[in-house]
């Protein structure tokens, strides 16, 4: 993307005023998406965004500047702006020898989305619409979205790192709206992988759309969710968001180093039920949060965060790892070249235990069964977090019964982790997620086997 010599000269310019560390991050992103709504393919959209972000660190201060002007002048101006922002002392010319860093091959791509005719993408949406509407006249609307992106990055820094990655993602989602006596209800289904158009070789688009439609129809007879603390069983692949919020964000080293996490200073301690082994793994292609190298040029890796309930390590980016004098864990990510990297999750998941998932439900006299979770949000300093349930049912006498209307659940991370009293043997990854932090959004994956929390506060309206 950029000439070797130009990168070296830019890094030198960035360090001329005495910074301790400089980095060039170049990105070229192309994407296309199409949206079907109201029975019509509303529009096709595509675009390209490329540019370079330059970071200079002097002492504890980071300076950052970015530009879409990829000429030598443009890069030098950005390098000088970043250097001025960091305001290092001293100066002089440093020579930087760049050595290529190779990450693991995590997601080989068979069919680049840009090579696929647009009418093939359009056809997927029309098929989804027809299949969802075929589930009955109560299905009033269908939204279907196809999106792909190809993100090529190059990272080079004054420690000699030179790394590149080519990240392709493809996703598909269907939302059906059903209308009945109780008003309107929605059913949702989404999938996405670090794959190309070959995603659709393995996806039964019609069945996928019908699943969304059936969810909406089922919810027409949903009761208001209960209000209050109850046992909650979470379906396999449906509950990764809970771990993402209950502890994932609290295990990010930027929160730890500011003592803004309930998990600060707890490495080696029992922080969860011994049934909990939690992993963050950027290498598990083609999951949604996988990549070869992170946005700081560090190869993706598998990091065990909690093992048998004991906190083993946090997640690290370059800046925080450098301060703690340890290696980065490959968790330095950013939304685009316009953003500074920070500690982010990749694919975060709970490992299997031994219980039979059906037995977990049978052994729950009364509670809530959550088949699918929506997004969530956490305050890492207090550990209080929420997450939404988009498909859930009552459990009565050990049986899954009536569907429930949408609601949030709320809990406290450390308490919830301790209150996990059953973990199944049926692990599955969940649907693709977008994680927001400090105004930046990055793709993340999650997963879990069926599990039970002895008590979570369910935020419905029914007594």
């Amino acid at each position, binding site marked *: 993307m950029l000439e070797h010599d130009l990168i070296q000269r830019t890094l030198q310019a960035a360090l001329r005023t005495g910074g301790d560390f400089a980095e060039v991050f170049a990105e070229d992103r192309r994407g296309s998406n199409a949206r079907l709504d109201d029975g019509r393919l*509303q529009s096709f959209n595509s675009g*390209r*965004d490329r540019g370079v972000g330059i970071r200079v660190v002097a002492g504890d201060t980071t300076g*950052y500047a970015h530009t879409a002007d990829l000429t030598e002048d443009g890069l030098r101006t950005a390098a000088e702006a970043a250097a001025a922002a960091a305001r290092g002392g001293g100066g002089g010319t440093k020579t930087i020898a760049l050595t290529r860093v190779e990450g693991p091959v995590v997601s080989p791509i068979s069919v680049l989305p840009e090579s696929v005719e647009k009418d093939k993408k359009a056809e997927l949406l029309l098929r989804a619409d027809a299949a969802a509407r075929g589930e009955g006249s109560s299905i009033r609307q269908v939204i279907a979205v196809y999106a792909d992106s190809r993100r090529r990055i190059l990272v080079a820094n004054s420690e000699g790192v030179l790394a590149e990655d080519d990240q392709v993602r493809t996703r598909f989602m269907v939302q059906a709206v059903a209308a009945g006596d109780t008003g309107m209800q929605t059913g949702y289904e989404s999938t996405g992988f670090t794959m190309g158009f070959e995603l659709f070789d393995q996806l039964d688009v019609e069945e996928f759309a019908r699943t969304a439609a059936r969810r909406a129809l089922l919810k027409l007879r949903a009761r208001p969710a209960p*209000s209050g603390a109850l046992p909650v069983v979470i379906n396999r692949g449906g509950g990764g968001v809970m771990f993402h919020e209950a502890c994932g964000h609290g295990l990010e080293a930027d929160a730890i180093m500011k003592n803004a996490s309930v998990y600060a200073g707890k490495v080696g301690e029992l922080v969860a039920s011994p049934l909990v082994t939690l992993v963050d793994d950027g290498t598990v292609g083609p999951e949604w949060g996988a990549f070869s190298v992170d946005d700081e040029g560090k190869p993706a890796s598998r990091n065990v965060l909690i093992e048998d309930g004991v906190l083993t390590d946090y997640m690290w980016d370059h800046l925080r790892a450098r301060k703690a004098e340890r290696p980065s864990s490959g968790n330095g990510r950013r939304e685009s070249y316009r953003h500074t990297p920070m500690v982010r999750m990749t694919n975060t998941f709970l490992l299997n235990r031994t219980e039979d998932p059906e037995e977990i439900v049978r052994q729950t006299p009364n509670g809530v069964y959550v088949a699918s979770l929506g997004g969530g949000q956490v305050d890492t300093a*207090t550990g209080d977090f929420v997450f939404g349930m988009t498909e859930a049912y009552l459990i009565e006498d050990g049986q899954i019964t009536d569907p429930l209307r949408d609601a949030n*659940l709320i809990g406290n991370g450390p308490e919830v982790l301790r209150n996990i009293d059953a973990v199944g043997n049926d692990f599955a990854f969940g649907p693709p997620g977008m994680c927001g932090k400090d105004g930046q959004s990055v793709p993340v994956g999650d997963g879990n086997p069926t599990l039970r929390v002895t008590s979570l506060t369910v935020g*419905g*309206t029914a007594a």
Partner: protein
Amino acid sequence: MSELLAIAAGVVERAREGEVVEAYVGRARTTEIKAYEGEVESLSSAASAGIAVRVVVDGRQGFAYTGAIDAAALEETLEEARDNARFAGVDECNTVASPDGVAPPELVMDTGKLAGTPVDRKVELALELERAARAASSLVRGVETAMYGDEVSTSAVATSTGVRAETESAVCYLATYVMAGEAAETQTGFWYGVGRTVDELDVSDVANLAVERAVRMLGAKQPSSRRLTVVLEPFVTAQFLSLIGSTLTGEAVLKGYSPFGDRVGESIGAASVTLVEDPTDPDAFGASRYDDEGLASRRVPLVDGGVLRGFVHNAYTGLRSGQGSTGSAARAGLSAPVTVGCRALALTPGTLSADEVIAQVGDGLLVQNVKGLHSGVNPISGDFSAGAEGLLIRDGQIAEPVREITIASTLQRMLQDVVVIGGDVHHLPMSAAGLTLAVGDVTMSGK
């Protein structure tokens, strides 16, 4: 004609026979400074520019965008939008805006003052904020975030149907997120201030309010579940109104996604509820001379005395509904297609101060923060469930703090259950202004 408008006009002049073309060109300069423990933790500043093009031909529309505005990028983007249009579905109402004779409001945006403020002054504000937050109480354990941010932006829209519009905007803000604690307990508080120039930012106000909100939560417990009246603080009310606004768009209505779609002329709220979308109000942060399709901003009555009056429209929904555009086209960034949305919602205020609203409510819950609106509110079914923290209200006074609770109802019920509207209007950098709002019969879930 300014440089950006000339670029946009240059693109649409290349429209071919039978094509309608719209070009939206944006440019922004942003600064973000974070302070931590007396030092600048990070300083980012950059300028960016880009273009989004829409082409409508034979009822099909295509969009394309590029994060650059050089000649090659403009040509490529127009070609790409043209190509994309070939694959979209036919809808005779697909269109771009056409001049409708409505004059834009006389909003004077002094962007030059903020653009000309030296970086050192901005750095000093971030550092001062961090110092002030630390010093505000002996209970402060740490300041997780103390930041200054600003954006000075210009956007221009031109269409082959004759629209030529340009909008400037300047906004700066301070925000801090603090931790306060005693023994093993930590509570957090967030607050911010916004202005059009740095002189409008009040460092000590932001620091003190953030710290006060953390300190007053110390000792918070999870209460038992019950139904009660909630008093939403202005920051929370603004988020609630933004959700209501999202159900009152022509797009939601035409496609059948709005729980209020067929209710025009009917009562959808308490008689005290009058809601207006008014981007012509110079005090609103969402105020602008034009919308994102280049039509003049105008005042749109939505709910009057509890009765639903109408919806906001862009060019497409305006044509399809026969109501005409209300100048409410919106874009969630350059890369997103045009939608329709509110940007300056205002609930007509009452007369009471926040304390008087609390006194009048007597018993209930003061909500200082909500979490998970994106995951627990369904704007199609209307189900509303949000994580919350706040303080109980007893005998008209603020009592003990509560946490790990949710508040739940439906959007439809909450509008009907409005019991008191405060007179304390807060203009926030959101799509609605805030004020203290009391809503009855909400379920608080706890133990």
